[in-house]
């Protein structure tokens, strides 16, 4: 169905052109944020959030190149689950984009290696809800629009390494918002 779209040539080409137009990616060109220099994987320990097996930079993908969240996390708008992008999604672009400098090349090589050896990268989970809570991502995007992600996840477009901005596992976080917007506060809306 719609998923096939994101591996079509058209989509890849668009992304590549966008990146090409943005010029040489480097930390220096990022929007103002906590990052000021080109970082290597070993550096990422200095940032908030758990270190990931690949130093995947949301600030580059989402911030610098303005790739929409749902380009990768496509099921967030249609399903309760946001999903985690498949390795194929990464390779859709990184089959061609190899990185401009050695630090980036190193990380992209890890992605390609994972693809070639058919061993998916094991990301460390940052946002995790208790198992007795059901959070329908699609309903929130439907109600608040495609850029609603930042409400809970923070502005990942400025994060070189994703960390938890809000204590989403605290029910007060949910309820405050639902009170402010005067929407459903029924327990069984989420707990069943």
């Amino acid at each position, binding site marked *: *169905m719609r*998923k*096939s779209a994101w591996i079509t040539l058209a989509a890849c080409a668009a992304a590549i052109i966008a990146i090409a137009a943005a010029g040489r990616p480097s930390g220096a060109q990022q929007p103002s944020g906590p990052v000021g220099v080109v970082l290597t994987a070993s550096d990422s320990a200095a940032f*908030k*959030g*758990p*270190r990931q097996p690949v130093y995947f930079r949301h600030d580059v993908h989402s911030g610098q190149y303005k790739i929409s969240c749902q380009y990768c996390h496509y*099921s967030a708008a*249609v*399903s*309760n*689950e*946001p*999903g*985690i*992008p*498949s*390795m*194929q*999604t990464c390779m859709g672009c990184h089959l061609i984009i190899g990185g401009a400098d050695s630090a980036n090349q190193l990380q992209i090589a890890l992605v390609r290696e994972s*693809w070639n050896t*058919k061993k*998916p*990268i*094991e*990301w*460390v*989970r*940052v946002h*995790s809800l*208790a*198992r*007795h*809570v*059901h959070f*329908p*991502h*699609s*309903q929130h995007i*439907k109600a608040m629009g495609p850029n609603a992600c930042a409400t809970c996840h923070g502005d990942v477009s400025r994060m070189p390494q994703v*960390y*938890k901005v809000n*204590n989403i*596992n605290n029910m007060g976080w949910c309820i405050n918002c639902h009170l402010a917007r*005067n929407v*459903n*506060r*029924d*327990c*069984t*809306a989420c*707990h*069943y």
Partner: protein
Amino acid sequence: MSDEREPSSDVSRRRFLAVLGTTSAGAVALSGCSTERVEKLIPYLVQSEDQVPGIPTWYASTCTECSAGCGLHVRVREGRPVKLEGNPEHPINKGALCARGQAGLQGLYNPGRVRAPMVKQGGAWKEISWDDAIALLAQKIGAAGGKLAVITGAGRGTFSSFLGDWTSAAGGRVVRYQPFDLEPVRAANARVFGRDEIPAYDFAAAKYIVSFGADFLETFGSSTEYQLAYADAHGFTPGREAAKHVYFAPRASLTGLNADEWHAVVPGSETSLALAMAGVLLQQRGGSVPGMPSVSVDDAAKATGLSAETITRLAKEFASASPSLAVAGGIGSQTAGATELCAAVNLLNFAAGNVGQTVRFGADLDHGDGFGALEALSKSMASGEVEVVLVQEANPVFTAPRATKFAESLGKVPFKVSTALYFDETAAASDLLLPSHHALERWDDLNARNGVWGLMQPVLTPVFNTMAPGDILLKTAQKAGGSLAKFSAASWEDQLKSTWQARFPGGDAMWRAALARGGVYQDAVVVPVTLASTDVTAAAAALEGTGEFTLLPYASSHYFDGRGANRPWLAENPDPVTKITWQSWVELSPEAAARLNVREGEILKVTSPHGSVEAAAYIYPGLRADVIAMPLGLGHTELGEFAKGRGVNYLDLLGPVSGAFIPYVSVKVQVERTPAYRKVAKTEGNTRQLGRGIAEAMPLVHAEQGLTLEQSAKAAGHPAHEINTPRELEALQGWREGQVGREDGQGRRLGNYVGEHAMWGMAVDLSRCTGCSACVTACYAENNIAWVGEDQVLRGREMSWMRIERYWEGGFDGEPIEARFVPLMCQHCDNAPCEPVCPVYAAYHTPDGLNGQVYNRCVGTRYCANNCPYKVRYFNWLAYNKKAFPEPLNLQLNPDVTVRARGVMEKCTFCVQRIRVAQHVAKLEDRALRDGDVVTACQQACPSRAITFGDMHDPGSAVLKVKESPRGYHILEEINVRPAVTYLAKVLRREPVAHAAAGGEEQH
């Protein structure tokens, strides 16, 4: 709640996520709360196009749990099937599915499965590679020089034809063996009508149904199909003439308990009864069947033990209805003379003009070769004529009575191969195990009857290192070469697909359409038949032995031929008739129990000329005094941890088989008391209603007049039953408004109970419900309900959110005994007693009328359960969730539903997860919820279509229409809890027994 940090059941819980697995891995630093577990997110390499995380994908398939061939819809989440439902497009089951069919999922994820090919070396099993295993088989078949035999339990289809071709190419022979094969039905049809087949029965069209021991609601033939039709015919629909149902058998099975009249005839005497009825019918209608043996009503009365008046009355009623339907051939009436009985019933149907109407030949329902073929093979094996035997999806070591010495014959075969899915008794006796894919893991088809071809497709990557049986045969053929070399297809999938494309026109488009619909469905051509023979012997077959009781083993509606024994859902789901879980039992009548001074639970020793078994006594009023009855299917010595060593196998009491079928009712037995006692693990409480009005009923005439229960009671001369006094009613005025509109003192509404909301409600039509318990299994599957096991059931701790209560009515002073079934789930009371007593607001009322239970709030005080008048709240005492889902059963868990931890109260939620998903989908599609968007699991499964669910605020909703029926009532209405579940009183085709009087009082 402590859930979060409890290790275990990793894949279980709320979601498998968009992740292939979540593991609690080592020490990776994590920002934020340091007490949280570190979880890994493992992406797909390539995401399947038809799997969206969080959204179920449905695949059509076909059920293989019996030979009926019902269509399935498999609900797959993140690559794992989590629920089986009926395929609404399928002509046989039309969307419904029985308990056994649903438990097919526990067959897929069964811990008792053979996990890899194995070879027996020096008495021990050793795992080998598939290549080695197939090479070994090919070599043995090559060396056997045609001395090959195959026993298969597979249904008729492309595979069974291929297996036939394959075996004859190798010079061997095939026996297609299915237990409960209805051999007498086929033999009688061959004799009387010249057609060796099982016809299609149209229960829906019949205006009068007579069953001579055929348990068509549970184990006889295509029972889900029959039940759908039976509910239409026999259930009450205003303006439609309801069929009457009469059941003749020594024991009232579930089918018998649903009959309007059950007559406990002498075992084996049904033949003369059928012939006498045919005689009366011909007399009344003025026709004749030349050559039909004539049995007088008096002779039949003498043989059966019924009165001549009763027989004449029933025969005349039967004669006045057209079309009618008579069926025979159940296991519980399968004496050595069963073929004669079926032939007599054929003549009865013929005389009544039912043949071609409600009994239609031409469909040729699937069946095996019969027990006679297995017996013949057994003799060949015993005499050393077989070098290699291949057993495929059959367990004859268990299902053939011990006295037939099948196991010994099998032992004489030098090389025995089994492709069993499960390590069953036959697999244990083999030398080589080549485990098959489950039906949900492979390509296959099933030609359950002429015109109906069901397809199966793999819906997940195989759970274990198994192979499709078609591929095993192909690979073996290619390895063996020689006469088998012609089977050169690259894979079984290719072969099946090309066979289909040759069979049906339309090429790829046809194939894709068939896959989506679950198969190709055409109507079978009805073949007219003529009378070929009227030869019937009316005399009952002699019974062996000298005991005082006739042994009546019957097919268990849950375990069937024993294949269900290792599935906890079926073991925990109480037997619909006796309400016993997990155990084997011996049924004896109250008269016999009084005579022998036996109480329930006493271990009885039952001895026949061929063996003896011991099991606990259960006193069952639906039984003749000279008969003891026992369910088959337990007493396994293998099959897996839940079956091994549980219960006893009553087949051990039977003698050698000489005919073409197993005469299950053929021995007389002695019953002795032993000093031992074992408490019966049953879920029945008080078997009488004690005037509480739980399972109400009204006579047919009153239902037809549209009377309410109150009016009906008045018309029948019973004293009026006051539900609420005028003062109570006055006190109730405005109570709901007072509750829902409460403010917090600052002008704010508490919650949002006053806005536009659905109001969920349910209606259960007791005139349709048969008590079959398919809904119970559906509820277990949908809601991740943990089974608790025998010891916990004995403590009354079963977790069945939905249960079927069975109450007895009558049975005293010569009154007939009557069973009433009531599916009981949370009633979602508007004025729920459980809610105000919860100290932590875990039990509360949702705006849309649900009685919510918030697991993470619950602290386990159990006040709510104490205060629930319906006893539908279940407490998780011992972390049942840890024991109930051992690998790989945990893969079945529904990711939409929380797996409850220890110390938490739980109960029916009206499938709130389905409500929420339907609401989400409607919102995404910018529309309002439509009636029928939410279907609860029990409603979906129900093979009687007794349950309706919907929004009571929607004036056009189906549930509202049903609830408006004058037969509607609430259970325990007088306590004013305002349940959201309305029951529609059962309709009796005779005067209702006054429930407040006779039966109840005597129990006190």
